[in-house]
């Protein structure tokens, strides 16, 4: 067996998790997650509800502190930064939340330009608004929605605004938490397409968590399946169908019978 060539710094993974564990009381959600997401690629994490996909994602962002293990972003261990250093760390990320998580006290454009209106990336208000409107256009929304409040928008529009906010400050890494949940199939398709286009054109590293297989095929370069607190299978999306892994097969074909118990 020959050793693979030295990957060098440029092909080092953008995000690496090693032995990440997290329990909530007696419930062991993550039992040693190992995962590497290459720079500029789109990784989709699949798995049933309650398998810890969101927890893993929140551990990377530092919203949840893991009990054990190591998380690196661009070679730097996370979780140690404080103050301005942590702000700089977070400024590299954009995140689309499952329910949009738009600030309902702010109009749409201020949601999109949130990062550009305060803190280290602060711009003049007119410029921030201009960028917000540009990003809204990018996700297919007209400038008319800029002055509406999130509660006045439909679910699909809220998702798009969330997407515009996630990309407003041109992040290097974008997280998508269940981007198509609660949307009709056509709107889900539109969002999937947008995500794929945006990730490609920005050259960003993307991590998506979903259980929507259409989404997986539309967005993913690589797929990882989280089951029972560990990564059950990982590989390129093209190899997903002939993995031979009974857990993955059951999941992607949505069978009630199989090694994964339907009642959790």
């Amino acid at each position: 067996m020959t050793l693979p060539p030295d990957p060098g710094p440029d092909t080092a993974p953008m995000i690496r998790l090693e032995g990440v564990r997290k329990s909530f009381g007696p419930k062991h959600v993550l039992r040693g997650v190992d995962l590497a997401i290459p720079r500029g690629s789109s990784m989709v994490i699949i798995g049933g509800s309650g398998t810890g996909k969101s927890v893993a994602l929140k551990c990377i962002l530092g919203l949840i502190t893991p009990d054990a293990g190591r998380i690196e972003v661009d070679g730097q261990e996370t979780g140690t930064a404080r103050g301005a250093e942590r702000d700089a760390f977070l400024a590299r990320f954009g995140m689309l939340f499952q329910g949009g998580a738009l600030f309902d006290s702010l109009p749409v454009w201020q949601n999109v330009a949130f990062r550009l209106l305060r803190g280290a990336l602060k711009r003049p208000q007119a410029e921030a608004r201009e960028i917000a409107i540009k990003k809204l256009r990018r996700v297919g929304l007209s400038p008319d929605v800029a002055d509406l409040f999130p509660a006045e928008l439909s679910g699909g529009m809220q998702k798009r605004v969330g997407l515009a906010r996630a990309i407003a400050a041109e992040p290097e890494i974008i997280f998508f938490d269940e981007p198509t949940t609660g949307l009709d199939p056509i709107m889900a398709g539109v969002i999937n397409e947008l995500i794929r286009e945006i990730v490609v054109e920005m050259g960003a590293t993307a991590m998506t968590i979903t259980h929507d297989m259409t989404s997986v095929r539309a967005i993913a370069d690589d797929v990882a399946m989280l089951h029972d607190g560990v990564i059950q299978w990982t590989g390129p999306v093209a190899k997903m169908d002939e993995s031979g892994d009974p857990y993955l097969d059951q999941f992607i074909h949505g069978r009630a019978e199989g090694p994964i118990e339907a009642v959790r």
Partner: protein
Amino acid sequence: MSALAPLGRLGRAVLVALAHVGRVTLFALSALGHMVRPPFYPREIGHALMNVGWLSLPVVGLTAIFTGGALALQIYAGGARFNAEAVVPQIVAIGMVRELGPVLVGLMIAARVTSSIAAEIATMKVTEQIDALVTLSTHPMKYLAAPRVLAALITVPLLVGVGDVIGIAGGYAVAVQNLGFNPAAYLKNTVDFLEPLDLISSLVKGAAFGLIAAVMGCYFGMNSGRGAQGVGRATKGSVEAAAVLILAANFILTGVFFSV
């Protein structure tokens, strides 16, 4: 073993309560720390000043005017039993400024402001808006808690001041209209009787109650459980805690200022 079980339960309850006190204290200190360290969010502070202060004026005014009026009637009726009807202006003034003004304003703020802060922040928590703030490099304590605590510290003493004046005015109106007091004499008696310490204690109580009201709203909101039930529990808990702590703080502060 079983004989000691109740003692064990009591011990655990005390430990849980102490842990809560510790967490709330640390939370309050953190909010105060974020209040004085940049970055500041002027828009949020302005919004909080408006919501905590200005928009509370009607409820504070109405509470104070009715209380002042009722107080005048009671003191007149009670005083009549030993021919002391004439003390109405003095007792209304001292009652409003030292106790009823701060306590009633504090409780009204707990009802109006603490509940709205807790419900708003709890809803933000359950809809992941707090997580979203963090991912947008914005500290939730700085963006949500600090402006509200600052606004309460500034405006609640002012509201107490306004409540004191309106309460005395309520007493004055009832005394002059219904009880036959001379307007000029009523005002003179009121002004002559009050001492600077009365006013200082009133305003200090206002600041303390404002701090309690805002901190409880933020604390319960940020520690809310999931779902609609979580928001409901956080809101209820925040108002209960704020009201009880305001009354307890009032007792302590009255002791500090007036027990000779």
